[in-house]
């Protein structure tokens, strides 16, 4: 079985780099994008199994990025990350078709759990 391809989109480069490394250690193939536009262009050129998207980003916002991703591939599961307890953004994301949402700082085990659920 091929490795699972995960795309991480977040402006906090330190965060996604480290998270990416941890996911690699757990046997996933992960790539990173520093903003929404980069992330979207990467989706168009490569097939990903799961996208992990931060909602709070400068430039193209998390929710807008989500809309565009869904426009490209409706079935691609997207797990949202929120920096604060704004359930409003989370709920809106869910309505736009996001798979689930998690709060930062992350519990890596919970994230793995969600990824596994998303893949099913």
């Amino acid at each position, binding site marked *: 079985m091929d490795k699972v391809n995960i795309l991480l989109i977040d402006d*906090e480069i*330190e*965060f996604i780099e*480290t*998270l990416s*490394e*941890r996911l690699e*250690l*757990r046997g996933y193939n992960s790539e990173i994008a520093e903003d929404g536009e980069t992330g979207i262009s990467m989706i168009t050129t490569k097939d990903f199994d799961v996208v992990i998207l931060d909602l709070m980003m400068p430039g193209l916002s998390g929710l807008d990025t989500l809309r565009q991703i869904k426009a490209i591939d409706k079935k691609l599961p997207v797990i949202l990350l929120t*920096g*604060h*307890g*704004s*359930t409003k953004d989370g709920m809106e994301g869910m309505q736009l078709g996001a798979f689930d949402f998690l*709060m*930062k*700082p*992350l519990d*890596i085990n919970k994230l793995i759990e969600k990824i596994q659920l998303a893949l099913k």
Partner: protein
Amino acid sequence: MYKSIINNLFLLEKEPKDHYNTLKRNIVIIMMLITTLPLATMVIINYFQYRSHLRSQIVAPLYAMSEKTKHSFELFLDQRLAIIRFISTAYSFEELADEQKINKILISLKKESFGFVDIGLINMEGTLVSYAGPYSLLGKNYAEQISFQETQINGQYISNVFLGYRKFPHIVIAVQHLTESGQTWMLRATIGTDFFNSLIKSMGLPRQTDAFLVSEDGLLQTDSLYYGKTLEKCPLKIGESTFNSENIDGSGNNDKDKIVVSSVFSIADYALVIVQPKSVALKSWYALKTEMIIILLISLAIIIFVVLRMTDSLIQRIRTSDENREHVIAELQHAQKLSSIGRLAAGVAHEVNNPLAIINEKAGLMNDLIELSEDFDKKSKFIDLTNAILNSVDRCRKITHRLLGFSKRIDVKIEPININHIINEVLDFLEKDILYRKIDINYVLSDDLISIESDHGQIQQVLLNLLTNAFAAVEEFGEVEIETQNIDNGGIQVRISDNGCGIPQDVIENIFDPFFSTKKEKGTGLGLSISYGIIKKLGGKISVESKLGEGATFTFDLPKKPIELEEIDG
């Protein structure tokens, strides 16, 4: 202009208590002035008008009476003069000089007209040449007497009353006769004054009222009730003014207790004087005056009472509305303060959250790497260290989430809940503390407590905060009472009371403010402000009552459904 005066009077920038007292004083003064001034003015005007009116009403009849009586006197005297004048014309000097004839004349006079005592004829030299009467005056010379001189000048004369030889009062009347030959002679008659007294009696004077004749030199010409007998000096000052002026008025007299009315005779030097005590004359005036004063006093009492009561209630209303306004402003300021601090806290929490997430991932990666690597020196020590970092991050995350929850609801999940169950859950959680500190929990939980829609976790948080505080406040063996009940608006109420140290008033005022803590290093000062925020968010109310040394009671209400959710559902 007057606006600034009104402002100065009523909008005083002073201490609140002073302000209300000054306001009250000014309103009372102004209202009193406005109401009593016209009243007083009217009373004063009426007083003087009635007084002058009544005086003239009382004096006028007296004056009319005195004039009428004076005319009777004058008529009487005039008649007597006319008779004497007729005799002087009807008879010649020689006829009158005849003693028999003059005696006959006197007899006819006495028969036809009362009062005559004697009659005598006086020649040019003033010698009495003929006389009829009870005295032997024949030959007496009158040239030096005033009566003779006055008659020579005026042609006729009426004397003042005097006591003659017989010691009874009488007057002399005399007329001069001028013959064709140029000779003059004089006819002189004496008249008793009994009729004076009878005339005065016939006036029909009211009680206590005196009337008498007085001569120009102040001698009584008739008996007076109060001022002496005939020919005594009259103690009243019937001054020259009385005789010089025809306009006689009681008020012109200086006497304070009496009204004196007098009429001056034109044919003799007499004045008829009527004296009436004011107590009699002004009886109706005094009654009216008393009534006026009583009405004035009653009105004043009513005005004062009404003004004071009205002002009191007015000031009370102003004070209440001021207090309400201040209360609302204070609440608003408090709410604004809470909301701005909430926003600040949310901002700080959000900013801290991102680096926290990075630390979390770095430490996690470190942990991953250590676990994956072969055994090395102090490997387990490193694992412990990274786990400690991760635990601390977890604690920080909880704090930031709490801070965020202060302004926003984190993961609000509205579901039907039973407060009694949540209380039991929280108490289970605190069981060790309760046992260890031997705290006596008194449950007053309502059995038929309705189930409400609210957030389970948040209410747990609130109960945890309140119960932790209550436990902290009591000593060992302290008592904490937990009471739940349904309330009128369809919601529920929870009361948590302790018998601990109580909360000072200044602390109560700030107790729900964020970062306000009395526990110093031990507390964040967020517990109660978060509870406050949660209850407000869930549409409820939280309040505290406390007496220092007697414990404290926290009460919160929760509605059947949070209002916000109802809106969404609708």
